[in-house]
């Protein structure tokens, strides 16, 4: 099976967010970009499928600007992906999820792809649009909110669960398809030092962005705002647990007005 995993470089969770000078996006000055969240889990899922299915190859693809995109591709190679492909895009263009999906589709269409894995959404823009748009561009079905993915080689079927508002659905589907993973591993594998060193020298295939692609999406950021800083909790004073409970309920009812 040929598995393609799509990943995006996003700011590390510890990043202190600030608006950039243009006011429309966040300031990337000093920000560390990493492979994280659902994308990191998608890589983990791909490698687990590879281990369980002889003859499987895992190809990682990312669309975005240097140097962050190359860094997450090398991080994926260090984890055990077999090949990496980079569609270089200017930062502003890559920020539009539909244009990113179009760039990814161009690269994925040119490589063998039985199963295309994406994270549910990137942890920065949280659009969650790439998997569906990619499936539409590739002309294959897509399944979102997927929890648990197994390949039944005998039946030639993917078996998985989807978590939707209606509950948990159990599915089987033939390949090819696009799967957006909801499941996040809290302890995905970490790269071993020899692999990290080796990954620095591994080749990365570059795919030129489509010369006919638009320079800007039809969805553009205008403003990036941070909520007013929280000033810290009002700490309740009390002598007994009962007094604490009474005070809290009174506050929730009369001051915060959130008591049911």
């Amino acid at each position, binding site marked *: 099976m040929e598995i393609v995993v799509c990943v995006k470089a996003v700011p590390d969770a510890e990043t202190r967010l600030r608006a950039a000078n243009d006011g429309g996006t966040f300031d990337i000055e000093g920000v560390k970009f990493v492979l994280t969240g659902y994308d990191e889990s998608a890589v983990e899922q791909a490698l687990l499928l590879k281990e369980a299915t002889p003859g499987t190859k895992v190809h990682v693809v990312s669309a975005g600007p240097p140097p962050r995109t190359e860094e997450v591709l090398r991080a994926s190679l260090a984890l055990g992906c077999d090949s990496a492909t980079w569609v270089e895009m200017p930062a502003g263009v890559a920020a539009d999820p539909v244009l990113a999906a179009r760039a990814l589709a161009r690269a994925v269409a040119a490589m063998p792809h039985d199963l295309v894995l994406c994270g549910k959404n990137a942890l920065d823009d*949280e659009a*969650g649009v790439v998997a*569906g*748009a990619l499936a539409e561009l590739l002309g294959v079905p897509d399944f979102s909110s997927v929890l648990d993915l197994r390949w039944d080689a005998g039946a030639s079927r993917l078996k998985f669960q989807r978590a939707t508002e209606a509950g948990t659905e*159990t*599915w089987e589907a033939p390949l090819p398809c696009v799967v957006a993973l909801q499941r996040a591993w809290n302890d995905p594998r970490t790269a071993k030092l020899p692999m990290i060193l080796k990954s620095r020298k591994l080749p990365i295939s570059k795919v030129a962005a489509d010369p006919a692609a638009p320079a800007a999406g039809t969805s553009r950021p205008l403003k990036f705002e941070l*909520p007013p800083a929280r000033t810290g909790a009002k*700490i309740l004073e009390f002598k007994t647990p009962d007094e604490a409970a009474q005070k809290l309920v009174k506050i929730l009812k009369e001051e915060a007005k959130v008591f049911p």
Partner: protein
Amino acid sequence: MTGPTLVVGEAEDGHLSDATKEAVGVAQSLSGKENVVGFVAGSASRAIAVGFGRVGVARAYLAEDPRLEGAVGAVVAHLVAQAADAAGAELVIVGGSTFGRDLVARLSVRWNASVATGVTALSRHDGFLEVRRPVFAGRATETRKLDGAHAAVALRPHAFPAPADAAGEAALTPVPLDTVPPALWNAKRLGLTATVRGAGPSLTEATIVVSGGRGVRSAENFHLIEELASSLDAAVGASRAVTDAGWRPDSYQVGQTGKAVSPQLYVAVGISGAIQHLAGMVSSRVIVAINTDASAPIFKVADYGVVGDLFQIVPALTQEVRRVRGR
């Protein structure tokens, strides 16, 4: 954009879902009540489509066919694009659900629409739409401009009021299915062996969430959290420490790699407040923290703090909530 707005409906227990009604409310205030058209696709969805009339939508498209039961999202996207074109719509609005987000993703390509998901505010300007949406798990908000001939927007759940139900029936226009490319039917769902709905409100939809963390100390003690949640009709969440330890399943996890929640009230019990966790709950309206450690970071983001032993505070709180609510 001056054409009608198409609202794509979703069913919930045989009626239009709350998320759909919220979308109807947004469409009506944006385009005018007369300028909103409904859409429903399903295997037995006539009554649901007619139900658009109850929230003031006079006309709805209906795609009804047994094959739509378990069809892939691409089929629905195809039919929505077709109905939107037939209606002369320039904007499609859908509720904030898994279905809605998937549909909008597909329409970005199939209907060549500029799209946004998780939208909390929407306004129409000269020739473009402006949307606001939380990003970075609620740590920031972005305003985006959507231009182009078509736009498709998925809302954030509970961000908008739903219009009140009244009497009324929408007049239906059938959507023909013969234009669906045959290959899309081949990609139909093969099996649905279980649909299990959990007890209590779901974590992402609940108006109150009570979460327990490492401070709860064991799986056996977690009933304290569940009893407090039950007294408040709240959903139960957990920090990563709890799901990692296997005290509760992964589906309980609130945080960056778990669920992002934004309830009216979030009660964090025995949770220190690692960034991982904060990323999933910091956009809650009111946050209460109960923790023995007065220097825990959770108190920096909480509105109200109780510094004390959760094993004493939580049972007292549960009892007080029950007393005040008379149950």
